[in-house]
């Protein structure tokens, strides 16, 4: 077996050294009844690299990929161009095959990268600090809600109807067990996000308001009044960003007063990967830092006075605090954070702004073109690279029909909100820099024919 270096004679010599006759002697503590008496059922013997690659290639070939044709899906996962450099560097063994940097003297590469990543995320979000990553956007969102409970000592969280329904589901699942009280809503196909409704619901028991920006329908609205309303009641504003590229074009939630900003970093450097692994982003104001979940990298010096980096404030974390920790998270998304950071370094401010502008321009072109299709109505006029259209019929079969023509047309709201019949005609269309004029034309033509 190619991954196992011990030879039969090594094994003999080593068994002799440890005083065992056979390998079974080393498993003597396993009760006889629990020992498998034969090989694992149905699993064939070891296979060559070529054979395994062939098996996996055949499975891969059964999927229609985003690159196979016109592609417009978003809703929390976006297709962006990932530069070749990103994938090259994250495959360097020193990054790929390193562990969590618990021995900082020989992990300065990972630690410095994390310090840079934290700074990039904090600046993008417009907040003071960011951590070294969470699993993904949905779990980061729940962690933010629990953090708000710890900070405010209140247990009522108001979730916007514009929050991704999977994120709401995750919070609902957890709240059942923790006793948090969640106020939730279903979005409506209106031009404005539900900011005014949210403001009306804040009371003295409210720990936080959770709002997605841009929201699940792609809409954007100013968060400043909402932040003021939260702060007037000593509640926190949590903003959720599932498309971080947007923040190269529109104001950051931090600038508008959000206390905690979390997000999904997949858009920058990570790729679609059928939903994982992704990258949870988590930032907040300096005064809340000791209630933050997750790993934090901080600057310090070594015994010769040289600058270096270490994991810090670990008295918040499970390996020190055990049941009193701020979260149970241990492993995070280190390699995805590296991919994000490399991509952001390649972009720089100038590149990020250009990329965001290209996304918005493409989305505007698509919105304009689709508006001309009979039976297609644009829901909102303020968006970044994703917008919702209301079709003259149910969107789900339309998406299905277009997939057969090789066009992946978007996410039907029927898929995301199966219970909400009033949303069934909604289609969320994401248009990134990867979309061409021909793609937009193919979508418009396809919709026109499907709706005829």
């Amino acid at each position, binding site marked *: *077996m190619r*991954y196992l270096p011990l030879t039969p004679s090594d094994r003999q010599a080593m068994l002799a050294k440890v005083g065992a006759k056979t390998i079974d002697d*080393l498993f*003597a*503590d*396993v*009760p006889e009844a*629990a*020992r*498998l008496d034969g*090989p694992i059922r149905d*699993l064939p013997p*070891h296979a060559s690299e070529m*054979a395994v*690659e062939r098996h*996996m*290639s055949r*499975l*891969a*070939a059964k*999927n*229609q990929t*985003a*690159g196979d044709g016109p592609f417009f899906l978003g809703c929390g996962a976006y297709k962006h161009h990932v530069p070749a450099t990103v994938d090259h560097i994250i495959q360097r063994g020193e*990054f*790929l095959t*390193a*562990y*969590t940097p618990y*021995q900082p*003297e*020989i992990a300065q590469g990972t630690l*410095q990268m994390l310090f840079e990543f934290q*700074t990039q995320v904090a600046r993008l979000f417009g907040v003071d600090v960011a951590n070294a990553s969470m*699993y993904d956007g949905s*779990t980061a969102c729940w962690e933010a809600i629990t953090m708000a409970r710890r900070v405010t000592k209140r247990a009522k969280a108001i979730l916007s109807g514009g929050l991704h329904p999977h*994120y709401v589901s*995750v919070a609902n*699942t957890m709240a059942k067990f923790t006793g948090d009280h969640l106020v939730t809503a279903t979005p409506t196909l209106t031009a404005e996000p539900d900011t005014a409704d949210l403001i009306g619901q804040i009371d003295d028991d409210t720990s936080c308001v959770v709002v997605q920006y841009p929201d699940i329908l792609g809409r954007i609205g100013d968060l400043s009044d909402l932040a003021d309303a939260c702060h007037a009641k000593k509640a926190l504003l949590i903003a959720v960003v599932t498309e971080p590229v947007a923040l190269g074009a529109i104001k950051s939630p931090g600038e508008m007063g959000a206390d905690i900003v979390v997000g999904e970093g997949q858009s920058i450097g990570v790729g679609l990967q*059928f939903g994982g692994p992704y990258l949870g982003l988590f930032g907040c104001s300096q005064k809340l830092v000791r209630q933050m979940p997750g790993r934090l990298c*901080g*600057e310090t010096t070594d015994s010769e006075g040289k600058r270096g*980096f*270490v994991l810090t404030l670990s008295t918040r974390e499970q*390996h020190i605090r055990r049941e009193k920790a701020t979260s*149970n998270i241990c492993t*995070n998304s*280190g390699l995805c954070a590296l991919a994000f950071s*490399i991509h*952001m370094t*390649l972009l*720089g*401010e100038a590149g*990020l702004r250009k990329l965001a502008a290209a996304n*918005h*321009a493409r989305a*505007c072109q698509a919105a304009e073109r689709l508006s001309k299709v009979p039976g297609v109505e644009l829901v909102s006029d*303020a968006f970044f690279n994703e917008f919702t259209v209301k079709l003259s019929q149910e969107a789900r079969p339309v998406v299905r029909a277009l997939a057969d023509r090789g066009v992946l047309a978007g996410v039907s709201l029927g898929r995301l909100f199966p*219970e909400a019949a009033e949303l069934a005609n909604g289609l969320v269309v994401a248009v990134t*820099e990867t979309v061409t004029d021909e793609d937009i034309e193919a979508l418009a033509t396809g919709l026109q024919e499907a709706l005829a």
Partner: protein
Amino acid sequence: MSINQSGWRPEMGNSGNGCGGPATYTGNRALMLEEPLLFEIGKLSNTGLDIEEVKAPASRLGGLERKADIGLPGLSEPETVRHYTRLSRQNYAIDLGLFPLGSCTMKHNPRLNERVARMPGFADIHPLQPVDTVQGALEVIHQLAHWLVTLTGMHSVAMSPKAGAHGELCGILAIRAALEARGDTRSVILVPESAHGTNPATAAFAGYKVENIPATKDGRVDLAALQERLGPDVAAVMITNPNTCGLFERDMKAISDAVHAAGALVYCDGANFNAIVGRVRPGDLGVDAMHINLHKTFSTPHGGGGPGSGPVVFSEALTSFAPLPFVEKTADGFALVEEETAGEHHARSFGRMVAFHGQMGMFTRALAYILSHGADGLKQVAEDAVLNANYILRSLEDVLDAPFAASGPCMHEAIFSDAGLAEGFTTLDIAKALIDEGYHPMTMYFPLVVHGAMLVEPTETESKDTLDQFIGALRSVAERAKAGDEALKGAPYYAPRRRLDETQAARKPVLVWNEPQQAEAAE
């Protein structure tokens, strides 16, 4: 071996730059290159990408244009490649050498698995595509799920948890849902003192009170103490098996029976499944739920701290409470069971834990790993991992205190303690000296039940020659620590940095870069 291969000995002293030579203008030492922060070398106007400009119709940003500078410096492509390549060289990694971190399972990461995960058919598909356009992806999940259930002898598996601790949460929530379904409001979870910190943190995160179970002198769960504590308020017991002392819980079946008899359920932390894969099935030991770290047993790369993946296998008693979504084989192919399609059959599911469907990029790698090893290879994995650990244990027990060595063989990791080192010398000194010898240190000060613990897990992907050299190095360091060699206290001498001041980092945290004038103003 009391001298390393370069001929340097501690008594030769140290000139401060670690090599006895003169200081350099750059601060570099030949191949050991210092690298400034991105924020010190990049500029807001620099970029490493050529992005096509798109002629825009009128902007529709709703008046929310971001006008102020964001503060994100960029680099050209060559500068970017060099920045990260230089940083990478300040890291230790499995690709460089033995990485014997106990309980973390740092084994070789096969490169075939990297190639497979990057096949466009897996890497370039969206989680919300129509399910008939992603049948191959669902089949991967289904195949891996099948092998995980088969290897553990359990009834079902939830694939969506994102990492080990997330899997623990999944298992505990299923247990709580099952108890609540029968109207049982138990409030306590029992956790052995030797458990990973994630166990008590998870139980608390899920709303439980946590109580410790003591260990016996031979490093195992104290069955009698456990039996005494079991009662109508205990919801579950979380057991790590093999445990964090590197020992198999001999009484596991008796523990499970006692827990079940008291109306509670058994959670097994499967972080150490790599020691028994292919030889023992946790399902035969009465386990109700167990997470499997795909980044440990099935060798998906650790990546400097993730991403991981933590599928959870369930007994029949818990299967109907498993979280959504999951994949089912139907007459027409593979179906994705989500909130909408859960129906009555899955009405008891405790809900969704995560957006989308789990760590696909880890599933492809783990499946390739399982198929590459096959039935014979996986069994050999466990056997070689255990043999390598016992070889280290028996080769060093004469020089380092091995608290459980007398009670029999260890499993995949060997535990030593700081007992017998010279006054004032600690596990930390041994660990830092190993860095100078070219190794990543073992896990230090964990588990908490052993004073000054050193937990050594070599894994099965190390050769005998590698182990022999490591044993020589650790023996040499241990002898120096027993002899009171003061030079050890300054180690590491040869790493990119000397010992770092963690107290300073925590007292006045600097978590992001601030431009020098800003940093001064803040003081």
